[in-house]
């Protein structure tokens, strides 16, 4: 009896060790949205998915850091990031393996790496959530520095999440000097800082602030729950910079232990079906494949003026401006 108990205990302690017929995926996309997709993949292929999800506490970068830690001894096969900047950081660190998925065909090359180490799919856009009672409304990101809107706006902490990516994209697009001048004016204009895009959206929904730059899924969720808000795509006029697009990104890990299954999951995530599912889900992501039906509240990518940036450049800028952003916040 005692031996049986001992064997049971030992077999419990080795749970989690690598298994054939499985694929290990690290996921930065919110679990509520990514888990159903991975479950469908399991059902359709019979391949067991072992997922490790990020939490809001780690500012959605915890699993990426685990990938960096495991570089010499990779445990993951696939990384599903909720934005492409991290993919670029991992590419620069030599953690990714190239893979040209047949399902990547039809996705604009702006949303793919040139060496096939990552590929974008289902995107969010950065837009303004605006309270319905707001008298003056913003139409450009530059309106954060508009004195007529002093104290009316809020933005998520630019040290974390998509706010960092967006500010880095602004630095790439505008150049350092102009971007810093804008940041300074924004500070003078008494723009509030929130802890997350979700909190920014809540502040606007409650009327505490008139507007906030958030991800489209944050705006849609408030709109769908009947909050008195609307949204505005910034910088859509001629010669304006356009809206910043944040696609998901999928990548294959170099040295993946289950590379065949990993490629199947890679293809699955890039499929039109997955994009359609993510469009219908509460995260309301905009498909990058043409012809896939998107969320009814949002315009398709082809109908938007998109900010033309090189994500590799944005990733480099993001690392570079971290000390500046810390200083900017502290002042």
């Amino acid at each position, binding site marked *: 009896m005692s031996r049986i108990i001992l064997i*049971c*205990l030992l077999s*419990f*302690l*080795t*749970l*989690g*060790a*690598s298994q054939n017929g499985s694929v*290990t*995926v*690290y996921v930065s996309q*919110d*679990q*509520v*949205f990514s888990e159903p997709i991975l479950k469908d993949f399991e059902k359709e292929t019979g391949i*067991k*998915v*072992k*997922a*490790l*999800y*990020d*939490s*809001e*506490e*780690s*500012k*959605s*970068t*915890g699993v*990426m*850091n685990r990938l*960096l*830690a*495991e570089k*010499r*001894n990779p*445990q*993951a096969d696939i990384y599903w990031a909720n934005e492409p900047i991290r993919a670029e950081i991992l590419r620069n660190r030599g953690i990714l393996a190239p893979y040209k998925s047949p399902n990547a065909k039809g996705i604009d090359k702006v949303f793919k790496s040139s060496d096939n180490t990552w590929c974008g799919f289902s995107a969010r856009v950065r837009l303004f959530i605006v309270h319905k009672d707001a008298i003056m409304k913003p139409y450009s990101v530059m309106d954060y520095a508009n004195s007529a809107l002093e104290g009316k706006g809020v933005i998520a902490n630019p040290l*974390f999440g998509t706010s960092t990516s967006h500010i880095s994209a602004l630095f790439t697009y505008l150049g350092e000097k102009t971007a810093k001048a804008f940041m300074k004016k924004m500070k003078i204009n008494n723009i509030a800082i929130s*802890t997350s895009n*979700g*909190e920014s959206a*809540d*502040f606007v929904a*409650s009327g*505490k602030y008139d507007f906030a730059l958030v991800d489209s*899924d944050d705006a849609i*969720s408030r709109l769908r729950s009947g909050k008195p808000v609307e949204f505005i795509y910034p910088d859509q006029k001629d010669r304006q910079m356009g809206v910043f697009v944040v696609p998901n990104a999928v990548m294959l890990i170099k040295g993946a232990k289950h590379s065949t299954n990993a490629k199947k999951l890679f293809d699955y995530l890039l499929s039109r079906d997955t994009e359609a599912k993510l469009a219908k889900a*509460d*995260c309301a992501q905009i498909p990058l494949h043409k012809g896939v039906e998107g969320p009814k509240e949002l315009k398709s990518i082809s109908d938007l003026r998109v900010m033309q940036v090189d994500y590799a450049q944005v990733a480099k800028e993001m690392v570079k401006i971290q000390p500046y952003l*810390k200083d900017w*916040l*502290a002042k």
Partner: protein
Amino acid sequence: MSQKLFSWIVFTIIFFICVSPVAVMVIEAIGKEDILIQLLHSKESLDSFFNSLILSVFVSFMTTLIGTLVGLILGKTNISLKKAILFLMLIPLLLPPYILALGWVDMLGVVGFFSELLFGFLGVSLVLFTLYLPIPVLFVLFYLKHINPHLEEAAYIYCDKKYVLSRVTIPLILPSIILSFLLVFILSFGEYSVANVLRYSVFPLESFVQFSAFYNFDGAIMMAMPMLLIALFVLFIEQFYLEKRIFKYKSFDYIHIFKLENNQKIYIVAIMIFCAFFMVVVPFWGLFSKIGSVDIFLIAFVKCLDSLLHSLLFASVSATILTFFAFIAAYIVYSKVFLVSKLIDMSLIFLFIVPSTVLGIALILFWNRPWIDFVYTSVLIVFFGYFAKYLFLGSKLIQHRFTQMPYSMVEAAMIFGADWKKILKYIFLPASYKVLGVVFIVFYIFILRENTITMLVYPPGYETLPVYIVTQMANGKEEIIAALCIIMTLSALIPFLLAMMLFRKKERA
């Protein structure tokens, strides 16, 4: 095998699995002090450090003050509904700390006057106060049993109640008051999930973010150092002041009770029920009101079934193994084997007071190596985390049981030539059956509610329910998260209630 050799083997296991990761972390930190200075120069880090310090002092002061009062009322007066009040106050301690915070958020919302109070120092203090109040209460109740009632009765002949209380009772339970203050201080200093939900910047979160969001291991290690120093300070006080005054006395069959007037009893019970209701029932009401329907509850249950099963499996198996090791560790400490007993005792208490974030980071640093990756890639690493964090609790409880046993039984066995293994098996083990059951339940509940270590080290596909709830907080539906919190509460409360009923039934029998 001699007792000494056995003791050293046990110490080596504990040291290798748990202490060496922290030691390696400290060694790696040597020479990188400039990183700490740089980090502490940042306004955010410095602010968060002072926030944590002020918060912990405030929470420990308030819980110790009110907890001692509540403990004295429950332990030394003749009020009714004592067990119901105590049970109500105990509930938050059985759950992951953030559940209470989420309950308050659901109750008060995210905007408005009350939520402004909730999201900040006051809200975090209230939740941590509710969470840790049972600690001084339980310590006082436990210690009151160790006061010789004749001392109080002798004083009572010449003095009034207040004088007896202030000059006899309280001085005798003072070590428990100090210990509970230190324990609450260290627990609230290391706790960050409540502050994270209520968006209040605290130091452990900074350390966690350094590792988790910036992957700055050097930064994370250095941010862990101040917390490690505070843990060492608490260890120092425990070892050199409290150790000789705690768990050494025999308990008495009865406690001297101060009899209160009927109207006094009604007032006191009413106040205590009101407070317990406000602190515990109101946030749970917030969660329940968010759920709305049984369907939501069922949907949440189906969604979390895998993680619930992982939680139950981790908790039951780990609690079983930990109970075994706690018994062994308690025996070695109790036997006072030269040096090794002290080393084990100090290691266990040190690991218990080291913040979970520090322990988690240390485990990853130590075990994430290609030649031993069977640990890092399996549930073993999670188990090592639990082993390090909670072995102390069980070991202390069992040690206390040993001190209550008549030593003459051991002496008699020795005279008849029984070796230490036989004494352990035929005297200590049978005498500890009841306490081993209690220890199993304590381990089970603490492991079930754990989320910090688990979140840092769990292998893919094996998340536990507390971790699942945290990951669902990112854009998950509020009603589903509320339902998950209730499922978590039930999975902790049901075994606890069953165990209580079982013990009561056995006591009656």
